[in-house]
């Protein structure tokens, strides 16, 4: 219990940064999506750590909702991905650039 909160928070910030960078560098849509999950987990960790530091249950409750939302988002997101890439599994995010300008 004596690890200072800042350690966790810096760890979460790094995770958030890795997730964001990953979303920007990967072109496989599924992996981009995994990177979003990384970011969400960083946020969860931040909330939990703050909850401990503030001695407040609210942060943990927030994480609960993040989990639920993430699950729903995954279902819908993968649904969209499947609907699009069913016909052309080779495709990456870069292959979708019909709409532009």
């Amino acid at each position: 219990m004596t690890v200072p909160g800042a350690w966790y928070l810096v760890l979460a910030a790094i995770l958030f940064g890795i997730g964001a960078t990953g979303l920007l560098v990967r072109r496989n849509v599924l992996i981009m999506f995994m990177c979003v999950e990384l970011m969400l987990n960083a946020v969860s960790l931040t909330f939990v750590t703050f909850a401990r530091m503030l001695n407040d249950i609210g942060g943990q409750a927030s994480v609960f909702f993040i989990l639920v939302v993430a699950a729903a988002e995954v279902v819908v997101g993968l649904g969209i991905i499947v609907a699009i890439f069913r016909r052309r599994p080779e495709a990456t995010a870069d292959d979708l650039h019909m709409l532009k300008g």
Partner: protein
Amino acid sequence: MIAALLATPQPMSVHLAHASAWAVFAVGAVLILSGALGVVLLRNPVHCALMLVITLFGIALEFIDQSADFLAAVQIIVYAGAVVILFLFVIMFLGVDRRERFMREPFRGQKPLAVILGLITLAEILVLSRVGNWSTGQHGVAGDLNGPGENIQKLGQSIYTRYLLPFEMTSALLVIAVVATVVLARQQSRAPSELTKDEQAGVAAAAADKAEAKR
């Protein structure tokens, strides 16, 4: 669970708890970072998904370390148990379990810029926090975290009172997820004009057969 036990401070073993808390944090941090880097750097999507699991475990470990037992459990069950499985399923279903094709970046600066921006954002957050000075808020607004009682009980209490409306409204989210799946997964119906010639012929033949049968 050992970590959970250790993380609970016992008057007898304060020093041990101290050390173990650090150990748990370190292990978790290593898992998290290695998993995250794996997701970002590995080529094969399946490997990436597995690395994601490692990160999720690491997060769960950190949750336990910070007395968020219930969340840790949910993290494992929902994320590792459902989400990642879903990812793997889709990867296999689409047959994209191979290395990313080499392709020229549409925008040359994308990768370096992305890394630079990631680093800048991280640096800015650290600057804002002055690294060590994160939490400035008031304590225990939504109810105490420490104190008597189980974590899960307090969490439940909070969710069913203060966060009742968000909790109920997650059901809307789930309904959307269901409807969305139906919409997206439904077999694509095509207008008659879109059918190929063979198909049109087939449809015509079927109609003729039907008419024949009726007679």
